[in-house]
């Protein structure tokens, strides 16, 4: 999925609407609730249950206590996958955030050609990860791609076959795919900053750079948290892009948690350990969202935490 993952949630509970008439509307929430329980929560319990079994994917599911967990935690592939996941998360955040903010701030001033830029910027988000991965895979092929066709040696690197370069390429492609989206979010946020603030600071003789740091950044800090959560939690779910681009390779240089899970489950026929990895994936996701939510919540004193 091209999912960009959930944003930080700051549910506002408006005191006005807390009426006592709730009973008559509860049923309206039921279809969504039941559906989500069935395909979201039950599988979640299921994956936990499966992590205590041994199953090759087509035979019998045999309860086996902690065997799968033991195997998973002993597997050197796990620390590697955690490290790769963390690297992707940290690097893609570090590349995307400053670029998206700068682009968003620039595009926020409404000018016709800037709107035109915004329209084109958005295109990568329309492409499926599979399409993007295939495009870059062909483009970067050392034998049949752009570098070889142009005869430019600098472009003719082993982009996807060298561990370091493959990670760098992956981060670049992720940024290529998602910076437009985050730019859009920042653009929206910057537009909501009252112009009067800039005018006031200008009277004080503040330059553009100082304005950026003293007005723009503090004003969009909640947006930074929203966008960061989207990036961070979303990076846990990169599967299709990596699967098509490098299949986790070279070696295991780009084998993030989701790929390790797929490999254990659907290639090595170890559904038990694969489920254990899935549980770890969920825990990491939950921990990160809670952390970022707290970060957002604490800074956000004006809003009371709902739900």
């Amino acid at each position, binding site marked *: 999925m091209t999912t960009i993952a959930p944003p930080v949630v700051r549910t506002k509970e408006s005191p006005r609407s807390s009426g006592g008439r709730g009973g008559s509307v509860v049923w309206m929430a039921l279809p969504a609730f*039941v559906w989500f*329980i*069935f395909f979201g929560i*039950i*599988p979640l*319990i*299921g994956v936990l*249950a*499966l992590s205590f079994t041994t199953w*090759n*994917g*087509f*035979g*019998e*599911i*045999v309860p086996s206590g902690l065997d799968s967990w033991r195997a998973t935690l002993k597997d*050197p*592939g796990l620390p590697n996958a955690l490290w790769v996941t963390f690297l992707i998360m940290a690097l893609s955040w570090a590349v995307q955030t400053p670029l998206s903010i700068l682009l968003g701030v620039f595009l926020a001033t409404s000018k016709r050609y800037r709107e035109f830029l915004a329209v084109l910027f958005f295109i990568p988000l329309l492409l499926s990860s599979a399409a993007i991965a295939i495009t870059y*895979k062909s483009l970067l*092929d*050392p*034998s*049949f791609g752009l570098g070889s066709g142009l005869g430019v040696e600098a472009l*003719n690197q*082993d*982009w*996807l*076959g*060298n*561990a370091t370069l*493959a990670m760098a390429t992956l981060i670049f492609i992720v940024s290529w795919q998602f910076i437009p989206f985050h730019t859009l979010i920042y653009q929206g946020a910057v537009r909501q900053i009252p112009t009067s603030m800039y005018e006031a600071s200008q009277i004080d003789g503040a330059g553009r750079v100082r304005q950026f740091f003293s007005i723009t950044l503090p004003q969009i800090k909640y947006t930074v948290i929203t966008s960061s959560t989207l990036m961070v939690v979303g990076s846990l779910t990169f599967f299709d892009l990596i699967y098509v681009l*490098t*299949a986790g*390779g*070279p*070696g*295991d*240089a780009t084998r993030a948690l989701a790929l390790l899970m797929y*490999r254990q489950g*659907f*290639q*090595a*026929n*170890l559904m038990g350990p694969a489920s254990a990895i899935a549980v770890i994936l969920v825990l990491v996701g939950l921990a990160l969202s809670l952390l970022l939510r707290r970060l957002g919540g604490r800074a956000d004193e004006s809003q009371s935490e709902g739900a």
Partner: protein
Amino acid sequence: MTNNPISRRNFLGLAAGAAGAAALAACGSDGPKAPGTGSTGGGGGGSASYWSLSGPPGEPVRKAAIERFNKANASTKIEELYFQNDAYKQKIKTSLGANQGPTMIWGWGGGGLKEYVNSNLVEDLTDWFGQNAAVKDKILASSFGAATVNGKIYAMPIETVQPIVLFYNKKVFERVGVQPPKSWGEIMALVPKFNAAKVAPFSLAGQSRWTNMMWLEFLLDRTAGSEVFDRVFAGEKDAWSDPAVLDMLTKIQDLVKANGFQKGFSSTTADSNADQALLYTGKAAMMLHGSWSYGIQTANGGNFVKEDGLGWMNFPAVEGGKGDPSNTVGNPGQYLSISSKATPEAKEIAKKFFSTTLVDDDEKSGWVKSGGVPVLKNSDSLFTGGDAQFLKDMAGIANGAKVFAQSWDQALSPTAAETLLDNIAKLFQLQVSPQQWVSAMNGVIGK
């Protein structure tokens, strides 16, 4: 097998609860189910299903066989479906898990077949072959090894005997002014010469990993003979800790370090046949690959094969090695099993297909024309025309080998094979040292 559905039901009893699975199922009826697909357990009525690999050279021959059978048996029908190699390996497992597998399960025998047997997914064909001795007699006896688990036959050897050979581009050798290598030392001496001429010495589809494995198989065999891997296969403790293994792994890393493979080999996939393309376009000088590569290069390489551009040989000897240079590695055949979950009618159709079409003369000549040596006996007389020399050589390698070893990843269980392939990829990436490789692999012996 009998208790499999029960245990799954237990799990899902928990999962489904009383949440009205039936109601949901009804909601989901908008997925149109085209006729002829996913026929549960292999087809109701007069049909059976057959899955195999797509692409040349095999697919046209497979299609022709199904067509012959369906024409000759108007009342019944075999439905066919083709997948790319890497995709097939995953798809066959999920579909068997979903009880939607085909009647006829195509495979490579060995460890993969053994796992199906352990899960009671495939029929025991021992008695059937006993009753149909005429069918069994038509197939090379040596091909039955990988079809046999615990002394019983669970698959029919089909298609072709596929030794792995060293292919080379004659035109590139001519241009660079060098001779094909006769030993490992000569290979290493050729590497800098090709690199200087801006040609990759070897083409390798490193992302697919089993392609890298062929190098290990040959080098280990040439240095130490077939015994080392036999011990691994037998599950002997620390069987990889043989000095010959370290020697072999070091040789491989030396070759990688000397830029023996094309730039970016780790991101090249075999499914796209990009490795073959490097050879026939002259971007690489040599390639270690299965004999089926001949058919691919004939089909995709334009006039490359026709104009005598392609050369081949058995993997050369290693100086001072103990292995017999006549030994080879590869697939002693492909294998077709019958799903134990198929309906009795479907099983009957499959058996009829086995005993008629798969052993008929058209089948034999079809595979010969595709550039392969059939698993069917007495095919030498068919080796004529442009491919004759290649076919004779392949048959010579296959029959002359003291040991025809099955590919490691096929011989081992999928779990062990996955670790093996993974570590091999890391070895080629220089991510692990030979010593680390050995200890990682010792850890999964017998699993």
